[in-house]
């Protein structure tokens, strides 16, 4: 936010206000030779000169409450002003509902400012009333569906006050609107993890949901990551769920070569090898082949990474062949 000191013509400086005559302003002491000096407007200096003065006096009054509003408008990132304002609210017994309205208006102007969201949170804690939080954060997410501050506040309110009931519908809307909205996918995980739980039924439902969305947009990291995240809660793992493995093979058969799909199949192979459950689809050779395809064609920007993964499978393959040989030898000895 910029300090537009000259735009409001009707502004009267604090030093020219008779009702502030009793206060001697305290100017900033930036030392004899300051650096990174901001050429503040006269209005900015005036407001902060008076803020320092009342802070020094520790004055708690209505006029100071108003002064903090002016100070916040000039710099909403000044956390000391916000803290002093909170102390004023307490000392004066101000109606906190009107403060909620006020901070909402500041959030609307500065939705990516840490201090305003912190102020909001403290107020909600004091009031122990989260009724407006879902709407407030919902509005902010309408403006910017990936606003980290809004999501953080929303998760906090939901978790603290148990506001999960309508959250899945909210998330579903956002994902329908933009299937690539990673924040919304994260929130989906949050709701299942904290509220619905990872029952077998829920795991299956979430797997189907993710697969539906992947069918719609195949090259979507968010949906693939979510699918993998859900499978962390499937006892059968990545490789043991036939619905998932055949979904992947179908995509592959239908010429899908999204790096996320290929990476996923590679991970299935990896797990199958570790479990000793090799199949014609999931074995070191297949993984090596996919790594090569990624490195040379479908994900060239990460070619070095895929070669590194490929090396791991080559080692695994050698170990396995070694084992087989030993077994063969052992069998011969038995003869």
């Amino acid at each position, binding site marked *: 936010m910029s300090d537009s000191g000259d735009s409001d013509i009707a502004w009267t400086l604090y030093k020219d206000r008779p009702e502030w005559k009793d206060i001697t302003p305290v100017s900033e002491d930036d030392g004899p030779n300051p650096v990174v000096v901001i050429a*503040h407007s006269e209005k900015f200096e005036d407001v902060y000169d008076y803020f*320092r003065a009342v802070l020094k006096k520790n004055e708690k009054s209505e006029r100071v409450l108003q002064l903090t509003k002016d100070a916040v408008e000039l710099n909403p990132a000044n956390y000391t002003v916000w803290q002093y304002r909170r102390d004023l609210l307490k000392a004066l017994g101000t109606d906190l509902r009107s403060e909620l309205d006020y901070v909402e208006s500041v959030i609307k102007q500065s939705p990516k400012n840490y201090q305003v969201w912190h102020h909001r949170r403290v107020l909600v804690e004091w009031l122990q009333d989260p009724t407006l939080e879902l709407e407030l954060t919902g509005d902010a997410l309408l403006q910017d569906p990936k606003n980290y501050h809004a999501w953080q506040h929303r998760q906090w309110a939901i978790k603290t006050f148990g506001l999960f009931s309508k959250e899945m519908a909210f998330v579903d809307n956002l994902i329908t609107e933009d299937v690539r909205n990673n924040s919304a996918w994260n929130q989906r995980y949050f709701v299942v993890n904290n509220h619905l739980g990872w029952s077998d039924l829920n795991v299956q439902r979430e797997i189907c949901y993710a697969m539906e969305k992947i069918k719609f947009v195949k090259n979507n990291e968010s949906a693939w990551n979510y699918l993998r995240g859900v499978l962390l809660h499937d006892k059968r793992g990545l490789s043991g769920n036939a619905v998932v493995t055949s979904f992947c093979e179908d995509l592959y058969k239908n010429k899908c070569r999204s790096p996320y799909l290929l990476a996923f199949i590679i991970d299935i192979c990896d797990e199958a090898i570790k479990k000793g459950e090799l199949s014609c689809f999931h074995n070191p050779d297949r993984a090596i082949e996919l790594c090569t395809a990624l490195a040379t064609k479908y994900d060239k920007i990460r070619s070095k*990474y895929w070669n590194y993964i490929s090396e791991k499978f080559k080692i695994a393959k050698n170990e396995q062949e070694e084992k087989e040989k030993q077994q063969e030898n052992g069998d011969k000895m038995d003869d």
Partner: protein
Amino acid sequence: MSHEERIELAHRQHVKYFMRFLNILPSSLSSHDTTRVTIAYFSVCGLDVLGSISSINLELRQRIVDWIYQLQVHPNKESGDMSSCGFQGSSTINIDLGAANSHYRCGHLAMTYTGLCILLTLGDDLSRINRKALVEGVKALQTDEGNFSATLSGCESDMRFVYCAACISYILDDWSGFNIEKATEYIIKSINYDFGIAQCPELESHGGTTFCALATLALTKQLDKLSTEQVEGLKRWLLFRQVDGFNGRPNKSVDTCYSFWVGASLKILDILHMTNYGNNRKYVYETQDCVVGGFSKWPDTCTDPMHTYLGLAGLSLIGENGLLEIVPTLNITNRAFEHLKTIHQKWATES
């Protein structure tokens, strides 16, 4: 202008750019009033990365050092309490306050961290810091959860300040204000289902906070607390941030600063070489203003000191010619880090 022309480092212009920020800033930057130390950090350390620390003459160097020390909050004169100690980000609240309201004047972890980096980069011997007090100031800010608040009076707590607290403790060579076990627990709790790391548990994975977390684990020598699965997952998540430059979250736009945040994270995991340097470099250069200097987050948008510094730091990580090498964990040059080591040696012999 073609990309071929833009791919030259506008060295001279960047030096001028930082020198301007060290002097005087327009009133449009008033919202940075409480964080001026960070602007000084980007400028001083940026000049250092450019190999141009000597552009800061002795007189200016002294001014910067004196200004930073003036922002140091000392123990309470009456009670001796040290919980407010640290550096302030500016002199906005640099006033003497009484016992009832002295807590409004307090250090801020990000300012203490960047303030110390400035002093080191300028070759100061840190003899005027109150080490014990700064450590106590850090200690007062760790929460039960294991993370850190930025300041004593009314601030949020998250991964950014865990990182700042770790850097301060490392620089001061004193971990008594930092509970490593608790912080590590917090970091591991903040690893997400996609293996990226978030600002706090269960939030969305983010390139910046992943850097903060990994750098902290490296500084506290706790990287081995991550499981193989977590390390491999992190590698994948981080490497997938590369599009041409890097983004900070899946499906978000590429931004110059992530060439550092993600690049440094990969460097800490020792796999930065698995990225595509050419594409990364090309993107960062597309955000360079070669007329007045500076880098922006996206091509043809406004430059700022943070993206300028991080753009250069990101280029330095991939070995760009004419740039000094960076220590990815502390985010200062190797040159400044060597100076820190001599200070540590001196402290060790004194104690």
